[in-house]
């Protein structure tokens, strides 16, 4: 059940109606939202609900055990078991076939005639996100960063809340559980929520889907059939597409959660205006970047153990971040490039400091950072590592054929996507201010009309969100 569908609209209308009816009964509202979230998840495959429930039960039980004792050995053992259980679950579904392929290749290279069978397992949607929720909860309870959750319904809703269930943002327990402890009493910021939903819908349905269908998908499917100009435009196109697709989903998730009375954290902040890779990762998929920093980079030692160890920690963190996206070498390369880039940037920061402070330096480093990120996206998007290599070879040659695939619309969308990166935040606030002058019913009418216009603007069909596959 994708957000931009009639089925989801029907589902959300029922949930909003029940949410309004249960406004004064917070426990019942939480229970209803949990049931609705499991129903939402069951629409993909009802069997996956058992995984989600199991992951929730492990996190809940581990939290109670950790909080019940001051014995460090017992606490450490419990957090270790819970984290291992989550990682095993993730590895089994996500990496089993990748490991089997590598082992079989190793067997073949050694002349061993045995082949391990493939499990041929369907990847449960959203598994990477809910296992990360579970891990962060037990680690935070262990570190005493968050109060233990004693109500099963709170834990179940934290793990399963449908707006963030399948593609994030990764909401920390310390951020979300206090919202479940008692009703906030705040009224719903309806205007901001609706504007975010509409903006997200436009980014996904119009910008991302047109760029995918008219430029990115055909060019990446057969890079050798296109010249350098099309390949370069498709690379920029993908940079804008993945931003619009993922941030569009996040905007909708945030808006939907707010309409139901819950806050979500910021996940994107105009990432392509970054003047360094470090800044990029503070603006792109912020909830994942922070997760990797707090649960991987810092426990590895962070930047506290000398420059050499810091570089290694950066590379290791980004490598694992790459592998989190999928069990393919192209993601390993993507992560390694970002890790290497971050390490190189840190190494040369002292040398470039004066340059970076100057206006021209800011422009140059923004362009350099954006192009490095685009280069890395080639590995991320290409079918496999070999296709990415062919793509890069094509970029380095074959500029004589001109533009054959990109059209006025796709180029216009790339320009629009880049303009969004540099538009002041006050622009969105002004829209919210203007839209907010209407009464709630009027805002609903205006939102419905806007959705109708977006539907008319977008290409036929609804393509799944890119991050659903992770």
């Amino acid at each position: 059940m994708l957000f931009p569908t009639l089925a989801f609209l029907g589902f959300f209308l029922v949930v909003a109606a029940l949410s309004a009816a249960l406004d004064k009964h917070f426990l019942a509202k939480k229970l209803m939202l949990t049931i609705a979230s499991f129903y939402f998840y069951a629409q993909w495959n009802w069997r996956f609900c058992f995984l989600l429930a199991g992951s929730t039960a492990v996190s809940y039980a581990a939290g109670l055990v950790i909080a019940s004792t001051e014995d460090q050995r017992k606490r450490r053992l419990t957090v270790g078991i819970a984290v291992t259980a989550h990682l095993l679950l993730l590895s089994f579904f996500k990496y089993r076939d990748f490991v089997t392929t590598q082992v079989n290749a190793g067997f073949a290279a050694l002349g061993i005639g045995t082949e391990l069978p493939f499990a041929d397992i369907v990847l449960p949607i959203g598994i990477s996100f809910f296992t990360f929720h579970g891990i962060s909860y037990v680690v935070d309870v262990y570190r005493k960063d968050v109060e233990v959750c004693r109500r099963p319904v709170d834990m179940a809703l934290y793990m399963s809340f449908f707006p963030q269930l399948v593609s994030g943002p990764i909401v920390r327990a310390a951020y979300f559980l206090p919202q479940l402890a008692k009703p906030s009493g705040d009224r719903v910021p309806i205007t901001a929520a609706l504007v975010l939903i509409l903006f997200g819908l436009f980014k996904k349905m119009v910008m991302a889907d047109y760029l995918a269908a008219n430029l990115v998908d055909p060019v990446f499917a057969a890079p050798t059939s296109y010249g350098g100009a099309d390949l370069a435009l498709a690379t920029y196109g993908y940079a804008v597409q993945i931003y619009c697709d993922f941030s569009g989903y996040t905007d909708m998730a945030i808006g939907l959660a707010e309409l139901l009375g819950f806050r979500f954290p910021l996940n994107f902040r105009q990432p392509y205006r970054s003047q360094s890779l470090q800044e990029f990762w503070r603006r792109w998929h912020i909830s994942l970047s922070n997760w990797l920093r707090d649960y991987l980079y810092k426990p590895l030692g962070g930047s506290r153990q000398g420059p050499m160890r810091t570089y290694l920690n950066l590379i290791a963190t980004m490598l694992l971040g790459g592998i989190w996206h999928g069990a393919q070498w192209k993601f390993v390369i993507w992560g390694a490039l970002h890790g290497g880039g971050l390490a190189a940037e840190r190494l040369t920061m002292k040398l470039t400091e004066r340059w970076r402070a100057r206006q021209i330096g800011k422009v140059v480093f923004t362009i350099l950072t954006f192009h490095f990120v685009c280069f890395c996206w080639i590995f991320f998007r290409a079918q496999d590592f070999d296709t990415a290599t062919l793509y890069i070879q094509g970029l380095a040659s074959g500029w004589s054929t001109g533009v054959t695939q990109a059209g006025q619309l796709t180029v216009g969308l790339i320009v629009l996507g880049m303009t969004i990166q540099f538009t002041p935040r006050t622009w969105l606030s002004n829209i919210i201010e203007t839209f907010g002058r209407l009464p709630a019913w009027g805002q609903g009418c205006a939102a419905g009309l806007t959705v109708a216009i977006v539907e008319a603007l977008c290409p036929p069909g609804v393509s799944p969100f890119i991050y659903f596959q992770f």
Partner: protein
Amino acid sequence: MASAQADAIPAFDREHTASPRGVLTACLMGAAMLLIFCSRELPAWADQTLPELSDTAKQIDDTLNAVDLTAPYDAIHTFMQRLSDSRFGG
């Protein structure tokens, strides 16, 4: 110590509010507007999700088409189709 997460919607954008009933009213009004001005999509949506409603969806679309309420959708759709097909130098 895990870092605190910042709200996606900052305090200064939270001034225009509604009650949960207001939210429901807005959602229902939005759905009604969508039904009226986006009826072209209804038959395909119904075919995919609720095939038993296919005939009703088609009837709604035909009725709204008869009173020209589908014209804005058709005009935008045709314009985008043309724009989507246009290529540089062609």
